[in-house]
């Protein structure tokens, strides 16, 4: 295992990927600060420093789940994907490094790069908030730490899925496209589910009278768009475990817990699938 890890880390540093990742991480952190200020507060960062408070930090930290997975997708393609595409994975197997060790070592490097990136971004966001002029009271809270940990677990799940995709596909470009499309696909599907679950059970029929302010309900019918039974339970479960929902954006304790648990399960299942597939797959 040490051989596989040393090899993976050597390449991580030697190819300059480490420093590129750091630059990318810092750039993303500042982009997110800018985005929160402009989109959520409606003004440029230097125009609204007095709105910089703990809520600003947690809101910005939550947006990491939209951005970090993109970086992880690119990172895993360059790091793990190259190993598969250049067939250098064969050199490792031929030296007696087991396939399990190979998968785990690549996953560890991807995880480490991603989690370090999350922590650095959280620190940058916090430091910005802490030292911004005319800021409000800013301090590290348990809630902040919980959000950071939850984001880290979500990103870990993405790492496992992406490494799995890289080992499945010998085509680097295809693997990258699939990895990058996964995030918008999750965002769109979460919104669709949200809409579907928001459909009312009853559709009322109204009659409007000129002399009355409120319309009169004259009957109702079952909404054909309403999803009930097991399908509703499944959609609710998926909704509660997606990081791209309004519920998660509220970042209450229950949503953080369910999200952390769901991401943990995705991580374990993806890793298990990856280990099974790498041990069965024959690479060209």
């Amino acid at each position, binding site marked *: 295992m*040490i*051989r*596989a890890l*040393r*090899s993976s880390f*050597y*390449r991580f540093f*030697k*190819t300059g990927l480490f420093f590129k990742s750091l630059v990318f991480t810092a750039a993303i952190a500042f982009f997110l600060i800018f985005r929160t200020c402009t989109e959520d507060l409606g003004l440029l960062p230097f125009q609204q420093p007095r709105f910089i408070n703990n809520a600003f930090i947690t809101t910005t930290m939550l947006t990491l789940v939209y951005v970090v997975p993109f970086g992880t997708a690119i990172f895993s393609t360059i790091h793990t994907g*190259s190993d598969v595409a*250049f*067939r*250098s*994975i*064969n*050199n*490792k*197997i*031929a*030296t*007696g*490094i*087991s396939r399990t060790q190979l998968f785990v070592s690549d996953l560890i490097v991807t995880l480490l790069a991603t989690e370090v990136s999350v922590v650095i971004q959280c620190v940058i966001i916090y430091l910005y908030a802490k030292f911004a002029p005319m800021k409000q009271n800013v301090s590290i809270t348990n809630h902040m730490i919980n959000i950071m940990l939850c984001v880290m677990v979500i990103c870990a799940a993405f790492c496992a899925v992406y490494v799995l995709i890289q080992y499945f596909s010998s085509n680097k470009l295809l693997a990258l496209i699939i990895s990058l499309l996964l995030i918008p696909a999750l965002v769109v599907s979460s919104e669709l589910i949200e809409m579907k679950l928001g459909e009312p059970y009853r559709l009322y029929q109204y009659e409007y009278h000129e002399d009355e302010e409120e319309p009169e309900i004259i009957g109702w019918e079952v909404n054909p768009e309403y999803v009930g039974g097991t399908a509703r339970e499944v959609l609710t479960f998926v909704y509660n475990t997606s990081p791209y929902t309004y519920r998660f954006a509220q970042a209450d304790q229950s949503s953080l817990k369910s999200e952390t648990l769901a991401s943990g399960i995705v991580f374990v299942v993806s890793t298990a699938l990856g280990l099974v597939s790498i041990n069965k797959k*024959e*690479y*060209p």
Partner: protein
Amino acid sequence: MENVLSTKDLCKNYGKHRILKNVTMEIPKGSIFGLVGRNGAGKTTLMRIVTGLASPTSGTYSIGGVMSNDKKILAVRRRMGSIIESPAIYKNLSAYDNIKLQYINLGMTTYDTIQDLLELVELQDTGKKKAGKFSLGMRQRLGIAIALCGNPDILVLDEPINGLDPQGIIQMREILLRINHEKHTTILISSHILEELSKLATHYAFIEKGEILQVLSSHELMSKVRKASRLKTTSTELLCPIFDREGIEYKVEDDENIDIYSDITASKIFNLANEAGAEVISINENNESLEGYFMNLVAKKDGIS
């Protein structure tokens, strides 16, 4: 003679297709073992199995006496270097870094010998140039250097001279002979260029449709290769019926050339040519090539006389 690699009844199926059929062979220590076969004969699959890149459907193999189903096989693999199909190199790293990475894969902690390896494959002057910018020949030589990391006891090389120019082929041949002579490394090598293989190999295995047709040493091959007289004539068409009548064993190469395998004097050939109304342009001794020998073996297997 001690064997460093042996296979027993190796079979490999991909779906319903049987790629290898009961392959049994033994590779003697210190030999250059040439694997001869057509495209799709199963050479690469066999090499992929012994290097651990694929697993056999049935059968076993052993490396240095350790059986394939033994857990120690992973450790033994460190004593084996390989290039399967094309060298697996990181194009975004230099030759030095590619070799260093393989040292790390092997668990080596000192890197003093990297320069020696670079000199052996004549890549010592490439500096920080990325392997992606190397010519095909340079990449093949880098592949050899990577395969040689850790001074392996056995090298498995699948088509290492594929795509090389004549100078590259000579360079590769010299490197392989040097490794074999100086380090006594056993080499399992396959190549389409049989003439080139015959300049290297000490042993041969002929493989066709996943079956080993014959395993023999180069000395045995030499003694088995059929001697023939190459007759150049104005008309092979006129001569063939006469040769058939006389029961002479021959093979028509083209419109002008016939290889005669029967023991027959030059004067008799002249007489028969006169009788047929064809002129004899020349008669030369023509030893059958490795290619010819292989094709005859394949023809026999297919039932073509």
